[in-house]
Structure formats: C-alpha cells, structure tokens
C-alpha cells in the first residue's frame, strides 16, 4: 500500500490504462500541462499523439471522442469543469448515450468523460456545479462519483475499460485528500456502493465530497449515542439499490446528502427508490439534505449557506431522530 492523493490516483489510473491498451487516448483542454495536475507528465510517456491538447471547443472534441469510440478506439475525454458539459450536451446525451441503442446494439461506445465538479470556494455558479443529476435522466450513460483516492483510481480504471459511455465526476475539494491505495492493480466495479461506516440507528447516504462530511457528522453523532451508517453509492447509474435497502432494513431511518440541487437531484432519485422499495422498513419519511435551488453563489458566506456540511448533516439527523 502507498499513500496517494486524489489527483495522483487519477494520474496513476490514466497512465496504467494508457499503458495497457493502445486503443486508449486522452483528449481535453490543457491536458499537456494538466490544469489540476491530473494529467501532468503523461505526454512524457505517451507522446502528443495519444495525449491530445484540445481547443476550447467542447462540442467539437467531445463529439470527436464519440466518433473515435465508434471507430474502434477507447477515448478518455476531459471536459475540465462539469458545467462545461452544457456546451456539449448534444454529443453526450443525443449521441454517446443513444447511438448504441438506436443502432439496435451494433455499436459499443467505450468512451470515458471526466470532469471536475463541485463547489471549491467562490468559483461561482458556472464553475461549481455537480451537474451529474441532469445526466441521471438520460438513459445510456453510466455515472460515477468517487469520494476518495482509492475509489477514484479503481473506478476510473473500470470506466476506461467499460464498453459504454461513463461519466466520471471528480470533486475538486478532494484533490489533496489522501488514502491508502494498493500497489498492485485493482478495479472498483461500477454499480457497487460502499458501506463507509457501519451503524444501526440511521443510514446516511452521501455522494462524492459529502461522504467525508457524513463521516465527520457520524463521529459527532456517536458522542450523542446515535449510531450512523454511512453509505457511498459510488456510482449513480447504475444505483446499488440492494445496499441501500439492506441498510434501511437495519436502521429504519434514512438521510440522503448531496451537494447538488434538491429538485430532481440525485438525492431525489435515491429517496424515491427507498420509498418505493423499502417503505415497510421505514420509521419515518426519507429525508434529503441538498443545495437549495439557486445557482451556486460567489460570496463566501452565501456559498457556505447553501452547501451541506457535517454540521448540517448531524443537525438534520438529530432532528429526524429527536
């Protein structure tokens, strides 16, 4: 095992997969220099032919990734900030997501889209969104949201090897967070949630960066004698419903925490699944904690006000169980 931060986990996963399969190549904005460090140094080993510095032209290069995937390659496309997905919505939602189905299953679409997401501190509304929930209602995509270095590396490797389009959302705030990562190769399968902490009184399902906040909250709740189980879905499509439902069968109370917006967000879908399929296990309605439906504001006190954090999580749980 070695300690590795989130960015290093991305870099290592990319290098390993590029080494393994000559069909893989990386294309995106600023990938030569590596805007956040995740792709730094890859040109040294793989050359400018496989590490392609794209123009600021999301529709152009995301669409080129789709075409390359249809022509037998395995592109990894970096969109930089998740909000920039709006500039290539057609290429992701109308093309990558649908062409396999529309062609009657003829085409594999082995393409990985990576983007950083989340509020990192006064980046304002166009550089702070999570965006993944919008993609959840587009059939044909898989979505992963890693919460730490171990999952980041294992999920990204699985995404690159998957023959379907996978969107990987990398929370910027996790960049320097470190975890122990095996030295030997490993994969984290897409579609399996992780129980990050076992507990018996309440299930907290938290997404991405919110996993760290939920774990902090669980510690503080423990001091009050509340035993919280923390579950990280890790992938939003497919959703590991089994893991949620078996936890709820034990705790009978659920809080779903997401940094994205409340309305039609990831937390809404998870809550609906539990309400549909786990109603008999519940002692109380499923509760959501997510950002209110305003764009992410710029000013620090405003931004802090809208984002869930450990204190808001523990306060909500106390209220639920109180």
């Amino acid at each position, binding site marked *: 095992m070695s300690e590795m931060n989130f960015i290093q986990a991305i870099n290592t996963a990319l290098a390993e997969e590029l080494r393994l399969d*000559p*069909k893989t*190549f990386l294309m995106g904005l600023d990938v030569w220099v590596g805007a956040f460090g995740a792709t730094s140094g890859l040109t040294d080993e793989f050359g400018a*032919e*496989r590490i*392609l510095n*794209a*123009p600021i*032209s999301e*529709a*152009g*290069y*995301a*669409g*080129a*990734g*789709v*075409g*390359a*995937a*249809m*022509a*037998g*390659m395995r*592109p990894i496309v970096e969109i930089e900030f998740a909000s920039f997905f709006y500039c290539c919505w*057609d*290429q992701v939602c*109308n*093309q990558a997501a649908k*062409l*396999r*189905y*529309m*062609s*009657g*299953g*003829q*085409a*594999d*679409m*082995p393409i990985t889209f990576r983007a950083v997401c989340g509020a990192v501190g006064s980046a304002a509304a166009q550089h702070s969104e999570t965006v993944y929930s919008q993609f959840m209602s587009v*059939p*044909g995509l*898989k979505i992963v949201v890693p919460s730490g270095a171990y999952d980041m590396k294992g999920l990204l490797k699985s995404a690159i090897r*998957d*023959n*379907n389009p996978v969107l990987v959302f990398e929370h910027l705030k996790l960049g320097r967070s470190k975890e122990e990562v095996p030295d030997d190769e490993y994969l984290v399968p897409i579609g399996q949630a992780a129980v990050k902490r076992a507990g018996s009184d309440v299930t907290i399902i938290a997404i991405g960066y919110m996993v760290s906040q939920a774990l902090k909250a669980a510690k503080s709740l423990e001091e009050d004698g509340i035993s919280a189980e923390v579950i990280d879905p890790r992938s939003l499509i497919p959703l590991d419903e089994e893991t949620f439902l078996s936890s709820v069968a034990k705790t009978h109370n659920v809080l779903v925490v997401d940094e994205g917006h409340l309305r039609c967000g990831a937390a809404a879908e998870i809550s609906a699944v539990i309400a549909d399929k786990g109603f008999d296990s519940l002692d109380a309605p499923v509760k959501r904690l997510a950002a209110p439906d305003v764009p992410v504001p710029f000013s620090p006190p405003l931004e802090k006000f809208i984002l869930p954090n450990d204190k808001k999580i523990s306060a909500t749980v106390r209220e639920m169980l109180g």
Partner: protein
Amino acid sequence: MADTSLSTDKLLDMYRTMQTIRQFESRVRDIFQEGQIPGFVHVSIGEEASATGVAAALTEQDYITSTHRGHGHLIAKGGEVKPMMAELFGKKTGYCKGKGGSMHIANFELGILGANGIVGAGLPIATGAGLAAKVRGSGEVAACFFGDGASNEGTFHESLNIASSWKLPVIYVCENNLYGEFTAGKDVTSVKDIADRARGHDMPGVVVNGNDVVEVYEATGQAVERARKGEGPTLIECKTYRWEGHVVGEEAFLGKRSYRPSDEIEAWKKRCPLITFEQRFVPDTFSEEGLTAVQAEVKQAIDDAVQFAQDSPYPAPEEALDDMFSAT
C-alpha cells in the same frame, strides 16, 4: 475531361447506385403517403450524384457520417435496400432492429457511423473517426455528409478547426440544396459559397456541380488522396437541390404556404443527376437499352425490398428494453 480515367464498370456502378437511390426514395415517398411507414421521412431525390460520387471514391473500410436525409448516403456506401426498407417500416429485420428508423440507420461493418437526427451532429463524429484513423495509423478516411444548414452550426466550425489543426483525414461534404428545412440558405447564411468557409480553417474549399457524379467523384478522389497522405481535411461543396419537400408530406404542416418558387424547382429538375449522366454517356459509352436494363433490375430490387419489409415481423414490444448497455 478526366472522366476517361473512370472505367465503364465504375461508371455503370455509379449509375446503378444513383438509380437505386432515386427509386428507393421515390418508393419511400409513395408508400409513406399510403401510410405504410411510421414517423416521417426525408428523401433525397435530386441529390443522388453527391452521395454516389463521394462514396465511389471511398473504400469499404472508410467511414461516413450521414444526416436526416441519409438514405442515399447509406445506399452509396453499400447499404442493402432490404434491411434499410425494413428499418423504415420499424421491423425487426431492419438494420437497427426497428430502434432507429429512417433518420438513424447505421451499419458499422460498412463504416456507416449512422444517419443522425441532429443537424450538425455528424461533423464531430466524422472528425473523431478521422482522429481514430490517425491515432492508430490505420489509413482510413472519414467522409462527412452535411447540409448547408449544418454549416451554420457551431459543430461545423469546431470540427473544421480541429481537423485542420490536427491534419485529420476527413472530407467534409456539404450538400448545399439551398434550403434548411423551410428557410432559404441565402437569408440566414453569411457566405454565398459554403466552400469559402474552408479558408477560415486553412483547408482547401472546393465548389462542384453536385448533380454531376463524375465531378463529385473526382473532387472527392483528390480530397481522399490528400487525406491519406496526411495533408489534412478538405471541404467540398456540392451544389444541388432537393426536388421534394424537407419532409415528405410537409403540406400537412405548411398548408398552402410556400417557401420555394415553383420555377426554381422546375429549373433544377432539368439538371437531374441521372439525365446529366445519360446525356454525357449515351450513346458513346452506354446504350440506352443498357441503362434501361439497369433501371429494371433496380426496380425489381426495390420491389423485393418493400415486400421484405412488409413481410417482416415487428420486434416484440419488450425488445424496447434491449440493447441499452454493452455487457462488458
């Protein structure tokens, strides 16, 4: 004239392809109006030469992307009329098992990366197919069919910029039929010749008579050669015209409102790609009887395709849930 370089076999193949497109499209129009085909269809009668001339300059391994008006491109690239017709009918024996329909036929074995219902969407996809060929050094080229309308989309400019910057083996084929849906290109487009837009992306821009299959073939051949040599993309503008409406049965939306002068339609019909071919090659290269025999063969093939589509079963309703994800 450089058309001496074309063998009579090749010329006859091109004629047969154009006949196939003409008769396929005419039949689709007719049976759509009879209610045999669900949804809506866009036919390319009058535009047979651009599809045929471009595809004739490609190999089977090369790629194409197509548009909502794509039947002709697919036929020219080797698509068979039976599974195409069956797809239009929504039948299980269609190329896409009834999941795509008229606007979305694809066949990856033939390098047909799909017709596409989104105007301009094929441009980055073709660019990516060219990129794939370049990254792996496998030598294919990608030909991208699109219309004058698509040249006003951002994806047109983004794709040409990328392909030119990276010297990708892509041939951008603009079939300028003068109208985007029900709007004249001249009212909404900054240039008279779409080919002029190539200059902004530092690539050759060529205007050809899109109704002359030989001229299209030769221009494409030069672009393919340039692409295979690693010299980058070319934009070819084929001046052409669609005889039918944007969509078959558009009178139902438009009523008596018209957007094209009828004398314009008649003038373009005189420049028919098939007549253009016949005038040039009959009787010196082909006899009238020889071409009439081709027409009869094609008619039989189209009859068979319609029969095949009519006789084919629909997919089982539950098949709506299949083909979502690859298992691996």
